[in-house]
């Protein structure tokens, strides 16, 4: 069953002579539980694609359907709530709230949803992410890998069906990178989550279930690696 479906998604910035076609008629589907890597050169349109998939930016043309819902037909307020509950974001620059501890950073999205965090699930996440003994640390007291693991925890806490990651290992060394990726994969497997990740790291893209390449706004499906 497909979790995500992109239908003829195009994005053009500007108009006339200065128009930039960032995405050109992109269509693909991602089944539930799949780990997809998106590769491509700088400026090829990867981040634009990710923004469209996460409903952060609106396409000039086309549709994005997640879990059977056309996200761009929703109102801004419903889209926010949909995003809050169904999509987890992981950024290259971690984007943690510097004044909150690891634990507080992780539960923050739940609080935005006016719910109480599930304590057992939080403990489980902290254990899986190896942050149990760092729960009261502030981001500035953590290593890059630990910070990114915190960000992963934050993305997982709402049990989203889709995780969008924009170069999550871009700021990490190779040891931390592989650690983060394996954690992400294990977690997604455990919680049946779909991951779409932008990466420049060949090793990571090779470990993905499937690789999509974006080049000059055009998407090429390299197919599923293990099939």
């Amino acid at each position, binding site marked *: 069953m497909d979790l995500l479906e992109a239908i003829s998604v195009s994005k053009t910035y500007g108009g006339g002579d200065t128009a930039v076609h960032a995405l050109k008629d992109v269509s693909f589907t991602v089944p539930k539980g799949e780990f997809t890597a998106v590769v491509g050169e700088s400026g090829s349109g990867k981040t634009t694609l*990710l923004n469209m998939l996460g409903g*952060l930016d609106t396409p000039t043309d086309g549709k994005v359907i997640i879990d059977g819902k056309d996200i761009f037909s929703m109102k801004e307020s419903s889209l*926010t*709530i949909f995003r809050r509950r169904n999509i987890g974001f992981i950024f*290259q620059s971690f984007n943690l709230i510097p004044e909150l501890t690891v634990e507080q950073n992780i539960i923050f999205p739940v609080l935005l949803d006016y719910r109480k965090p599930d304590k057992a699930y939080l403990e489980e996440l902290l254990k899986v992410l190896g942050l149990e003994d760092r729960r009261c640390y502030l981001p500035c007291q953590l290593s890059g890998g630990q910070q990114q693991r915190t960000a992963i925890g934050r993305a997982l806490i709402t049990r989203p069906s889709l995780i969008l990651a924009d170069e999550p290992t871009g700021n990490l060394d190779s040891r931390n990178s592989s650690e983060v990726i394996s954690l992400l994969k294990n977690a997604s497997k455990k919680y049946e989550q779909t991951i779409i990740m932008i990466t420049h790291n060949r090793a990571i893209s090779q470990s993905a279930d499937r690789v999509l390449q974006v080049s000059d706004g055009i998407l090429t499906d390299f197919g599923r690696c293990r099939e």
Partner: protein
Amino acid sequence: MRSYLSLIPISVRVRRKQSLMTVICITLSVFLVTAIFSMADMGIRLEEANAKQKHGSWHILIRDISDEEAEEISARPDVAAFSVQDAINYNIKEDYYIGGKKAAVAGMNKTFLTDTFDYITEGRFPETDNEAVISENAKDIMGVNIGDSITLNTPLGKYEYTISGFEHDANTYMYDAVLLCLNMSAFDNVRISEGKSPAREYCYRFNKYINVRKSINEIKEQFNIPDENIGENVVMVGLTGFSENSVLQGMYITAGVLSLLILIAGVLMIAGSMNSNITQRTEFFGMLRCIGASKKQIIRFVRLEALNWCKIAVPIGSGLGIIVTWILCAALKFGIGGELSSIPLFGISLTGIVCGIFVGIITVLIAARSPAKKASKVSPVTAVSGNVKVKTHRSISAKFLKTETALGISHASASKKNLLLMTGSFALSIILFLSFSAIHDWTRHALNDLQPHTPDLSFASADLSCNITGELADNVNSMRGVKRAFGRGFKGDLAIDDYKGINKVDLVSLDDIQFEWADEEKWTKDSVGLERAYKEKNCVITVFDKDNPLEKGDKIKLGDDIAEIVCVFTDSPIGGGGNPTILCNEKMFARLTGETGYAVLDIQLEKNATESNISAIRSQAEANGFLLSDRRENNREIEGTYYAFTILVYGFIGIIAMIALFNIMNSISMSVSARIKQYGAMRSVGMSARQLTDMIAAETAVYTFCGLVVGLVAGIPINKLFFESFVTAYFGTAWEPPLAEVFISAVFVLIASILAVYAPSNRIKNMSVADTARSE
């Protein structure tokens, strides 16, 4: 953490340094409002105390109604106190004497002497018909005490009384006479025996917190009382907030306008600082949006964050406001004294504190609106892309300007909202300054008794006839303790040929020294006209008055002469009687009236004049049958009020200047902080510290220029409005463009801008290029 909003207090703790500016802005607003309203409150309390002391604790006084009607009015539920009085010879023109001193006789009920006026200083109200309270000065003059007998000698008889107490009424000192206070029945005995008809005056005080204006109108209507039979205690009615007196209403409007201006200044200041705070945290808000915060949640977050700053700023601001109020009150009480010594020293004004808190919170909420919306509009993409894109649609034009200057100008004009806020805050300082300078002009005009001409004592004949001879004037002039004596001739109701609807004038003569003062103290700006009036024949001066139609160039027939009005006094101590006043030199006065003496002789005392010197002058006056009025206490009060006003007005201008300076420096500093990464990038590609300073200076120059233009365009009409409604309407001085004030505000804004550029550019210079590029 229970809610996402719990982030706010944590964030405030951590981001203390970044929030400091905003907190200071809020503190300043709260402080200002608390201080102003507290001072106003103290001022009202002082005025109330002084008004009760001086004019009595009543709101309205009604004449020509029957005792029954008076009783009926007093039974109204809104009336708190009612008293009655009547008087004989209150103007001391008739021959009533006690112990050889001129005397006035008053009858009253107990409430009048003990509540409406708190005048009894010793003893008690005369309960029986043979008892009397007498003015305190009788103690010195006649050496009498409580229990002693006194005799009132009237043109028709003699009345014996026993003194039951003493009272203090400043008027008796002024007119050098004694006042005898009797109860109503004793008074009526005298009144009937003397063949006087009753002239009862009923005083009413209303309850607190009622609409006094409405009550007065109801009474007028119900009892058919014409306007001339109902008097208001202007100060007391004014203090209730329902005065119809136009000066007081003008005051309310002014206070309202100024409060509004302060509110706007506060909003601009806080909004400006919050805006930069938000700009610096765009990524943070983008991230919040990304992880699921709705726009509403972001707006709530920013608002609550702002309110959270109030938790720190409001108590500090209120505290500072209270302390500054105490300091100001102490300065007024001990520094000036006199009338101001009854100002409460450690008074806490609930109104001031509540207004401070209220205005603080309202300002913050209003100020937070736009930044909150701005934050909510931050696209979640900013969190993903990791950098905040500054959208610029125009490239800079460096054709005629250096690149750094062009960049600076472009920075200033990049965001319309920011330019508007900065221009607004610069302009507002100028507007406030110009408004206050107009009020200061009013103070100067209204309290002009401090000028060199102000007399300490005055001799006058009872009927204002010119029988103070030049010889007597010379005599007084040579007395010990007298610095100077100068006189004026007076001829009231002098008939003239009907001109502009006027057929009577009051003619007053001026001597040489008064002509000198007229020039020196700028009673008029027309020194040529003044010179002509002094030297030339048939040249006279008139005094501006709302009801006086005479103007310069008018010719009126005085006696057999045609006199030309060659000058108009706009700001003089003389005049203001029932008829238009015409002033002329002594020669002309003598020719027109045949009088060579003075009606009034003013005396200025040496600083070291003793009471015995004054007694000698008093004896001189009495020996010649003149009344002596002692204006020293009055002068001291006016002096006190003048200094108090000056301190307040200058204090306020000082605070405005401080806010303006702080605001300008803060705004520039925050604008620089918001762009510091860009500056780092520029420095890393070779921009020198000097060029960077030039760039910031160019940006500041745009704000300064726009602020000055808007400030002057809006401020000058407000200055004109205030000046015309306070000064021109009452003193006739025409409004002139406030060039000096414009110059001062321009220089001030320029200096503030230079200081504002210096601090942040210095900060960047002292930071390494790498730090600048990295800093957030």
